[in-house]
């Protein structure tokens, strides 16, 4: 039997009688009360998510910045201390190993926050490129820390976050919530304003409680997925992986081909000059049917692609998704069909950012 890993908040999830599931080897709540309620609470108030499954890895040392610039698609040494950026970790052939946040915490101190899947593969990858150099130290703190996201339009009214309310988007600081030392960044994965908070694992319960006391709603993986999908955010391992390149995944904006050499750069230059043959697009189903990950995309009776993420959009009341389609079909407004329960169902290609904050 597979024993699932527990986050420092596991007891909370059990006590709240959440519906638990296996997510990349972690036991996490699919929902506490209802995905729809949790989704709506985050869009209209504030929700809290246990994101401890995500990896938190420090890269420190005199050559840390140069090392990261050699494996990431965006230049980290140009980041000011106290700011962060999204970046990709690519294989030599340009395939996407992961997307991650790189925080420049000190001149020679970087924190990487990446997805739960393939943690070992990614750590091995870092160690492989770092080699035995004593000026590049990689420290995985994922299991010693807790990470929560607090997201939604009313986060700025929370007392717990009063001291970080001034942070610019993608900015971060090390401060205290009550007497708990925390690392807080103004980032998130929901399409709402909000913060992500990292603290020592032993402080997980008081940290959680401080947000509960202010009425923040616990939200599970279901809402995490529907929120990010509505906001047009992709999930690595589902919408892109080592068999997809950043340009077809619509992540070309995360690749800086003007910076110095990095792993995958020559392959990515080649791919860019040749142009991509397929593209990840957003689609909206015309009717009431719901597409799901893995469903076939059909055009003129021929299978032309696959759905990667899909489901209902609770905010918009429509059924949406992402799919890879041939480049000639990837223009807005193009009609495609998705095979749902053996029947082709009409859908249209639309902007991937289905939901925009304040819209």
């Amino acid at each position: 039997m597979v024993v699932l890993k527990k986050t420092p908040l596991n007891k909370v999830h059990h006590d709240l009688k959440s519906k638990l599931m296996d997510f990349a080897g972690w036991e996490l709540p699919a929902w506490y009360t209802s995905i729809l309620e949790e989704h709506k609470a985050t869009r209209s108030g504030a929700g809290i998510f246990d994101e401890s499954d995500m990896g938190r890895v420090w890269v420190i040392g005199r050559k840390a910045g140069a090392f990261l610039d050699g494996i990431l698609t965006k230049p980290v040494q140009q980041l000011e201390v106290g700011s962060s950026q999204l970046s990709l970790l690519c294989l030599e052939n340009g395939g996407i190993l992961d997307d991650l946040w790189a925080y420049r915490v000190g001149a020679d101190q970087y924190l990487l926050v990446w997805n739960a899947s393939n943690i070992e593969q990614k750590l091995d990858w870092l160690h492989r490129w770092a080699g035995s150099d004593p000026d590049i130290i990689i420290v995985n703190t994922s299991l010693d820390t807790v990470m929560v996201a607090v997201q939604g339009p009313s986060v700025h009214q929370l007392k717990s976050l009063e001291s970080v309310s001034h942070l610019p988007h993608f900015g971060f600081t090390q401060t205290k919530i009550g007497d708990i030392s925390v690392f807080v960044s103004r980032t998130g994965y929901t399409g709402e304003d909000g913060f992500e908070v990292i603290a020592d694992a032993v402080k997980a319960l008081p940290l959680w409680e401080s947000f509960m006391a202010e009425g923040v709603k616990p939200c599970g993986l279901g809402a995490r997925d529907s929120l990010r999908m509505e906001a047009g955010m992709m999930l690595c391992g589902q919408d892109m992986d080592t068999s997809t390149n950043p340009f077809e995944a619509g992540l070309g904006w995360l690749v800086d081909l003007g910076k110095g050499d990095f792993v995958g750069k020559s392959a990515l230059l080649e791919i860019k000059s040749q142009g991509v043959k397929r593209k990840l697009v957003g689609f909206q189903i015309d009717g009431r049917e719901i597409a799901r990950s893995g469903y076939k995309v059909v055009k003129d009776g021929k299978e032309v692609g696959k759905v990667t993420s899909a489901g209902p959009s609770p905010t918009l009341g429509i059924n949406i998704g992402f799919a890879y389609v041939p480049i000639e079909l990837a223009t807005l407004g193009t009609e495609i069909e998705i095979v749902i329960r053996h029947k082709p169902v009409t859908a249209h290609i639309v902007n991937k950012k289905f939901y925009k904050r304040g819209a």
Partner: protein
Amino acid sequence: MNPKEYKYTQEHEWICPESGNKGKMGFTDYAQTQLGDIVFLDLPAPGTKVEQFKKLGEVESVKAVSDIFAPASGQVLEVNQTVIDEPKLVNEDPYGAGWLVKIEMSDSSELGNLMNSDEYDKFVAGLSEEGSE
């Protein structure tokens, strides 16, 4: 809490026998808590023949698709249009307004293959124990 006069399947459907070999069917309360928010129902049109324990339709929650199985063989007499328009009725009132279809049973002795409410209560309690281990 599971109605006494209903009969239950291991797949968490109920059927409420009425006069004239007819019966309404739906999901149990346990089923709706496991499925979560229900957002779409694919139900057979009146006249469709169904077979006991065979697939009758599909239910979609926000998260996933699941099959619906027929609690008895026969023919679909009526489909609950209200629940098709408002699938969350299955979550809110699984034994009442959230019923799915009415079946004209071809062999009412098949009801003997189903659990009564006490048996179903025990069956669900057993599942919850397994789940918490």
